């Protein structure tokens, strides 16, 4: 019986998990942190501190800016120096709260001991409120506010909670180390999520290239005695950890275009999010740090670091010896879906998962040649799209045809670009085309809303 995997497409890059043996180490505090107010999907948060204010670790420094938004807490103790625009990793200006670090004083209510708290509070509403107040967002990279995901709209019912421990991106090992070193906390977090969604079955999905993690988590589940939580071993394939693909693999159900996973009864949370949920609910600790893998073949010292949110990238890199000679590209995230860093002075966000160094040979694009209509991109696309067609339509700016060919379903995983023998930058074009379609959809929705309101009057 083959291991479970998703039904369409996918590619099989080498997993390059060269940092898998690196234990998680906390990074020494930087002298200044810059905490962005736009670290999640939804409305940016509104700062509620001013220059000169003294803050402690875990103190609220920004309030949610809307329904889909999140609290932001200070990850250090010190004095607020400024609240103003600062360039992110792509050079775009976003409001950041600059805090000069003084000491490491935490808010009193946070439990900093190591004891495992296995007793889960019974009040689900209180749990969700705690998650909301802790500013927890999806740590798989999408940074969707968790409390919103855990409050499904009326009429939809959750049938399974899936904890995503696949970590299908090459090079990344932070989730793997969390599973090995903080597995118990992760399992308790999974149990909390399971209870909150109505005591539904819970699956912790882990790719087959992490056998130690699979074994360890199975032991932990048996030891802690939780019923209804199982580990499912997944086939090593990219993008196994993509939300829609994982639901397809685990539950054999496909989330429709434009629909949410809850529409097929699934709630997917990353391993890091489960850990954060444990820390928030059982230890009153808000989301103020996360594990980052710093890696790359040309990087002499591999590491998995526990980094406070808002730490400048340059500080992290310099503490480990600086940017290596042969590195020409620094990526925030993995090589498939990560973003190239154009500004090393930018700071980490809640969703930052890795810093990857790539050499010229690894990353220089080969010159583009004509599309030979081989169809390899269509074979590789996990969403069943036709990238060769989408890129042509995107170059022609044909929004209608793009929508008809489902450009909006693209999850930007990069499988098409990876498989193209002609080295065509497929994803670059499809992203642009997706932008056209999303604007058109939004414009239509706005017009429909306006028409509905006008009809009401």
């Amino acid at each position, binding site marked *: 019986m083959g291991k479970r995997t998703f039904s369409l497409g996918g590619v099989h890059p080498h997993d390059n998990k060269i940092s898998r043996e690196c234990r998680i180490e906390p990074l020494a505090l930087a002298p200044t942190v810059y905490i962005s107010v736009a670290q999640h999907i939804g409305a940016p948060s509104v700062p509620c501190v001013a220059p000169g204010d003294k803050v402690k670790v875990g103190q609220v420094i920004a309030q949610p800016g809307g329904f889909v938004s999140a609290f932001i807490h200070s990850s250090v103790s010190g004095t607020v120096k400024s609240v103003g625009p600062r360039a992110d990793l*792509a050079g*775009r200006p976003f409001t950041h709260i600059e805090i000069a670090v003084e000491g490491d004083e935490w808010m009193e209510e946070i439990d900093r001991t190591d004891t495992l708290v296995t007793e889960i509070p019974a009040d689900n509403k209180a749990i969700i409120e705690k998650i909301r107040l802790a500013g927890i967002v999806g740590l798989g990279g999408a940074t969707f506010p968790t409390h919103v995901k855990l409050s499904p709209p009326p009429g939809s019912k959750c049938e399974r909670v899936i904890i995503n421990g696949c970590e299908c991106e090459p090079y990344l090992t932070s989730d793997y180390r969390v599973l090995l070193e903080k597995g118990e906390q992760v399992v308790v977090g999974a149990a909390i999520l399971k209870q909150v969604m109505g005591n539904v079955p819970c699956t912790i999905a882990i790719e087959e290239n992490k056998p130690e993690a699979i074994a360890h988590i199975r032991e932990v589940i048996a030891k802690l005695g939780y019923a209804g939580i199982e580990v499912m071993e997944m086939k090593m394939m990219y993008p196994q950890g993509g939300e829609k693909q994982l639901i397809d693999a685990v539950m054999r159900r496909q989330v429709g275009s434009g629909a949410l996973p809850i529409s097929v009864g699934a709630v997917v949370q990353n391993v890091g999010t489960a850990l954060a949920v444990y820390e928030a609910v059982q230890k009153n600790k808000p989301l103020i740090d996360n594990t980052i893998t710093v890696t790359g073949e040309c990087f002499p010292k591999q590491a998995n670091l526990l980094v406070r949110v808002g730490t400048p990238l340059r500080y992290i890199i310099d503490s480990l010896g600086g940017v290596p000679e042969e590195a*020409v590209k620094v990526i925030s995230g993995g090589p498939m879906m990560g973003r*190239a860093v154009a500004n090393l002075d930018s700071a980490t966000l809640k969703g930052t998962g890795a810093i990857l160094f790539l050499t010229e040979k690894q990353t220089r694009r080969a010159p583009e040649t004509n599309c030979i209509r081989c169809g390899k991109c269509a074979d590789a696309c996990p969403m069943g799209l036709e990238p060769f067609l989408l890129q042509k339509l995107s170059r022609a700016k044909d929004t209608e045809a793009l929508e008809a060919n489902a450009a909006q379903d693209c999850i930007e995983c990069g499988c098409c670009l990876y498989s193209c023998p002609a080295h065509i*930058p497929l994803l670059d074009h499809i*992203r*642009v085309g997706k932008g056209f379609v999303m604007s058109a959809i939004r414009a239509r929705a706005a017009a429909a809303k306006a028409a509905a309101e006008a009809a009401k009057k």
Partner: protein
Amino acid sequence: MTNTIIWTIAIITVLGVVLALVLYLVAKKFKVEEDPRIDEVEKVMPGANCGGCGFAGCRAFAEAAVKAPNLDNNFCPVGGNDVMAKVAAILGYEVKAKAPQVAVVRCNGTCEARPRVNEYDGFSSCFVKANLYTGDTGCSYGCLGCGDCVGACQFGALSMDPATGLPVVDETKCTACGACVKACPKRVIELRPKGPRGMREYVSCVNKEKGPVAKKACANACIGCGLCAKTCTHEAITVDANLAYIDPAKCKLCRECEAVCPTGAIHGVNFPKPLDKDAVKARINERKKKAAEAKAVETKKED
């Protein structure tokens, strides 16, 4: 043998006549009635089908012009005033002559003045680049240099200058159709009036960052110091969000702003003589002195 020939000729002749009749009747029955003036207007149009008028081609413009009550909203930038006069004559409308416009590239971030801070290895298109990040220089507002504007121009009026990395507009070919303006994702290109004898002044920068930040990224940036606005005696310059802007309607081409600009961000084109900065500055100081003296006399009078 002759029989065959005669029969062949006869049958083919009859067939020809019958088919011609059918074609004639069909053409008559399915004929679309159109205002004949549309054809007349279309004849005088330049026929470039560039879309600069806002319509899908010259014929669409002709249709719209015939249907419209006046020619206020219909202007062909390629044909210019000549063509519009002809169209007005055909339709019996009046048309005001519009000042001819030209595309202006408001960025002077050359390779020398605006050094690169990273290298872009993606698809060579300004649109794609802008979608990804703010560009390979320290200035997040300026020209991205991939030439989407050059590709958009149907008249061959734009070309990339390899020495500066910026697009150059050929005034003789530019028809002010606006395609390049739409193509530029950073809104660097603007349509401005050509000006008397082609002379015009403009601020060659679109950077809205604070002065020191802008200057660090590009030596030719507008730092928003406001000196130009203070000097201008025609109230043509406004400074908004650290960026100066010259209103072409009010500008009288005195070039004083250009002389006082500390970074050289203000450009004057097609002037017959090169700008003598010292002379202009002296003139400005003279004027200020006179104004101060006049004010002193006034206050003295009031005392």
